[in-house]
């Protein structure tokens, strides 16, 4: 079964060059540009991936989230891992799905050029500091809690990717010729404004965590 994506996969069509398969010969500049462009995708067009071991739960959560986000549903580990590309900003995954361990997810997130926030769908509370996950949702998930959590993770994802782009542009502009440099300076100012806007919705510890947290594959 291939992953479903509703409404129509606008974010994929918008940036056809952003699939992880086609980008192997990108230069460093293309790479930073690609990341920079993906920061401009409005909140509603950022993709949320949902995969629970119970297809009915997957469908229920996906239906709630579709009111605000572009959602992909996946029903097994192959679907879920294949769907974890650079368009995904938040993934809600059930680690009890066979083949969807935290390690597999982290490996996929690392190699796929994506830098999304990952929350576990669980039956028991998790000590999040000791896992590779950014957050967890205890089932059954109340709809308003689901929406709030995805909104928060989406802001964290936006802060993290924007900050990464900001660093890259700050670096790239050093070697740029004058014309290119002017363009990168404008870009830097735009990213700075966007960082300030997202930072306003985060408290200090959230911002540090979103900016610096390394996915830990030792789990």
């Amino acid at each position, binding site marked *: 079964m291939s992953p479903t994506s509703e409404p129509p996969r606008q974010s994929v069509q918008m940036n056809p060059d952003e699939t992880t398969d086609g980008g192997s010969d990108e230069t460093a500049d293309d790479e930073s540009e690609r990341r920079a462009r993906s920061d401009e995708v409005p909140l509603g067009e950022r993709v949320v991936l949902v995969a629970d071991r119970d297809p009915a739960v997957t469908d229920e959560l996906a239906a709630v989230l579709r009111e605000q986000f572009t959602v992909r549903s996946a029903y097994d580990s192959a679907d879920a891992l294949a769907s974890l590309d650079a368009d995904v900003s938040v993934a809600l995954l059930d680690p009890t799905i066979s083949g969807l361990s935290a390690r597999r997810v982290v490996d996929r997130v690392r190699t796929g050029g994506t830098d999304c926030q990952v929350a576990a769908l669980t039956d028991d509370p998790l000590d999040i500091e000791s896992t590779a996950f950014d957050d967890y949702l205890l089932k059954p998930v109340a709809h308003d809690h689901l929406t709030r959590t995805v909104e928060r993770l989406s802001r964290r994802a936006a802060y993290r990717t924007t900050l990464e782009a*900001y*660093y890259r542009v*700050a670096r790239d502009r*050093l070697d740029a010729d004058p014309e290119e440099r002017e363009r990168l300076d404008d870009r830097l100012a735009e990213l700075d404004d966007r*960082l300030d806007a997202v930072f306003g919705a985060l408290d200090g*510890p959230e911002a*540090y965590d979103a*900016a*610096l*947290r390394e996915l830990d594959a030792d789990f």
Partner: protein
Amino acid sequence: MNVLLLAPSVGGHEDDVCGELLHGPSDRERALLVTCMESPAERLAVWTDHEDGRPEDATVIDVEADARSTAAAAAAGDAPNAVVESVGAEVDLAGLGDVIDRHLAEFGADGDTAVCVHSVSDLLQRADEAAVFKFLEVLTSTVERAGAVGHYHLNPDVHDPETIRTFEVLFDSVVDLRTANVADE
């Protein structure tokens, strides 16, 4: 407001300028000092020696105390009227940020707090350039939000010029003690 202070290894009146930045024109009453290689007492002395004396509330966040020389450690007991919180070497930059954030919040947001980070060069010994850059973006944003004034020491003698120019974008202004020129970014 956030100022990058480029202070070379020798000369440049680093301590004098640090004291000026801490006290400011309005003689601020609260200060938050982050120190890595120097002891809390040594950092506190920088503004005790300043003509306006020491602010009423001083907090020193003491990073990496284990790596310090025994001479500096011997002076560490002498930090009167200051809260000293030690942060172990195992704490990462995000953990350090949380500690700074907590003390900044305790000081309140009425714009009368000075922050001194000594130093960015030492932080670059602990983590790579990208991580320190991101840490400083968050820190300068929290300082701005608290209405505080922060300055950040960096020794230009021990880093690539590219590193310094990359970091400059994070700050409202750069004070370069190699030339004693003040350049607005």
